[in-house]
């Protein structure tokens, strides 16, 4: 879409500068006159929202770094000092902490948008891959940042995650030691995490520049997935049309953001992180921040050995595989039709995929052995050993007195004990089913559907889809429905 430049320097200074550093021309061509499909909906505003999120995180982060002390004996207190003593420190920290959640909320919507409208398909594969790289570094940055306040969840979350790296065969222990800078998480770890947490957002910024560059070569995808054919009919200049639309969406987004900052600043956090880290006491329930929960659920869903790979390593592989698979989505989806608006089957599988993603988040937040729902009422069970003292037997009762009576009649050697037996559908099983669907969606459904599915007719052009094909008769007849064998492949 990077066509000939429309910029014409007017003043003498602009002409002088244009032959030396054509920066005004560059800004004009990328952000003012950039031809943008005229049918973008609000799902397309999240790119701009994410740019704002990154800037907010960098600005608030730089301010927090002026007051934070990366020392295990002082880190927790320095964060409390920011909250209590530093002027407006509470505000800056709450913006930063909730900003991370808002950033991930927006990035997930942005990614689901890309998956639904096929924005990863040719010629936008590199654009998509750069996006996945950004997402990956975002997760790393968020994890590092969560360790810095040196709360209980910081410390023990970090030890669970670094212990995962220890599960890698042969090199795992060495890599883990080099990551921690010692035998366990301590001062060296905190210092390097702080250093990297400061560095990575700027790396993200650099990749965002590449991401926008890769976007501006083919131009935006759009809800129809049909490529721009006539720049005059199909597009409008980015400014003012999309600066205003993005601006409105950013304002609405910031209102939601502000709600969390001012009215529920800790709603998305964990209370245990307001207790200073204690290596000798593990919190009863270790969970990562909400945006990492689906991957945590996949990690814990692998409770069985897969061939020679033990369960722990297999879980680690599944967790990283769940992210790595996003890199190859452009080649897994065989359909030539970009937008799922015209893919009736894919649309349904996609909705199920989104639900599974959210469901995995809930599975990650819950104890795997807790029940999602019960099969029956809880039952009283007496467990005891038989005469040989070997096998453990059990007998169920509906009534406490019956159970008590039964226990009294057993000999002393039977060591009877009363238990409550629960039967129901475990969160673990839910995580396993949804995790299976997550991988099946990419590895089975997308490849097969592209060949089998019969897409609906697509509009001949973006102008047609906006105006309806009666008015835009000059745009030609709509592409007939029919499998991918359809001669009209322009949206592919």
């Amino acid at each position: 879409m990077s066509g000939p430049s429309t910029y014409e320097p007017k003043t003498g200074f602009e002409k002088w500068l244009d032959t030396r550093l054509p920066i005004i021309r560059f800004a004009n061509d990328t952000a003012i006159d950039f031809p943008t499909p005229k049918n973008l909906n609000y799902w397309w505003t999240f790119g701009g929202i994410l740019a704002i999120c990154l800037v907010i995180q960098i600005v608030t982060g730089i301010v927090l770094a002026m007051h934070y002390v990366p020392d295990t004996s002082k880190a927790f207190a320095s964060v409390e000092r920011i909250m209590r003593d530093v002027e407006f420190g509470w505000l800056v920290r709450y913006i930063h902490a909730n900003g991370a959640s808002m950033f991930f909320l927006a990035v997930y919507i942005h990614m689901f948008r890309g998956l639904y409208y096929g924005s990863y398909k040719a010629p936008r594969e590199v654009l998509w891959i750069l996006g996945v790289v950004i997402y990956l570094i975002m997760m790393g940055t968020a994890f590092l940042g969560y360790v810095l306040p040196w709360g209980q969840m910081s410390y023990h979350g970090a030890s669970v995650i670094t212990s995962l790296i220890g599960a890698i065969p042969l090199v795992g222990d060495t890599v883990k030691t080099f990551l921690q800078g010692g035998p366990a998480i301590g001062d060296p770890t905190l210092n390097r995490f702080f250093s990297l947490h400061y560095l990575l957002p700027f790396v993200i910024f650099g990749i965002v520049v590449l991401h926008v560059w890769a976007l501006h070569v083919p131009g935006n995808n759009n809800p129809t997935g049909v490529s721009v054919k006539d720049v005059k009919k199909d597009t409008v200049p980015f400014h003012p049309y999309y600066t205003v639309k993005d601006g409105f969406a950013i304002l609405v987004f910031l209102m939601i953001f502000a709600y969390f900052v001012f009215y529920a600043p800790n709603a998305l956090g964990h209370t245990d992180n307001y207790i200073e880290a204690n290596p000798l006491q593990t919190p009863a329930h270790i969970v990562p921040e909400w945006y990492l929960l689906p991957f945590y659920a996949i990690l814990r869903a692998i409770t069985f050995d897969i061939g020679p790979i033990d369960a722990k390593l297999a879980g680690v592989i599944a967790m990283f595989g769940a992210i790595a698979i996003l890199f190859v989505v452009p080649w897994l989806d065989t359909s030539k039709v970009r937008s799922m608006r015209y893919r009736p089957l894919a649309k349904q599988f996609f909705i199920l995929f989104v639900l599974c993603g959210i469901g995995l988040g809930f599975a990650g937040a819950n104890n795997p052995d807790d029940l999602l729902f019960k099969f029956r009422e809880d039952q009283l069970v007496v467990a005891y050993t038989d005469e040989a003292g070997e096998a453990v037997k059990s007998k169920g009762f509906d009534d406490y007195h019956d159970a008590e009576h039964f226990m009294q009649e057993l000999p002393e050697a039977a060591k009877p004990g009363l238990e409550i037996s629960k039967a129901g559908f475990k969160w673990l099983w839910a995580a396993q089913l949804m995790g299976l669907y997550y991988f099946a969606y990419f590895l089975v459904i997308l490849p097969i559907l592209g060949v089998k599915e019969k897409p609906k007719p697509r509009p001949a052009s973006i102008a047609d889809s906006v105006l309806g094909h009666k008015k835009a008769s000059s745009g030609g007849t709509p592409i007939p429905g029919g499998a991918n064998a359809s001669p009209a492949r322009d949206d592919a």
Partner: protein
Amino acid sequence: MSDAHTSNIEEDGETRRDFIHIAAGAAFAGGAAAVAWPFVMQLGPAADTRAASSAEVDTSKIPLGGEIRVLIGGKPFFVRHRTEAEIAAAEAVNLSKLPDPQTDDERLVPMMNGELNRAILVTSGACTHLGCVPVGPAQGNTGDFGGWYCPCHGSHYDTSGRIRKGPAPKNLPVPTYAYLSDSLIKISL
């Protein structure tokens, strides 16, 4: 350029320039690796961190039936003073029923005179499942087998620190330690 190129052609089509390219590339790769080495190695444990990787514990201070918890380089260790009943329970276990079979004697280190001090058990304090620190006698919960209980995902350890029930795959590891006298031990990472 072309003059220099043709004048360097040797019999088998390789030029001196090819050699210079390969030599320069090799020197660059070697130089890059040499520069990368210190930048990677600085990530490892520093000398003071390595120096702080052992601790001495006076076992005579531990009350009978109790334990003390030691942090060495940030890693937790349990030193437990077992009662006669706890020792007997640890020795009476049928090994074939254990997920990670080990006798109680195998999990002890002899004193200076070569005998085992069965009353003192030293183990790592990190659950072999995901590294949580199990609770023990001081926290009022020793699990179903009288040893330790990990509240994270419900692993039960017996009075020898062996895994008996729950998701943990291995026994609590016994660290490297030695008796410096009858009651003084030195635990190393």
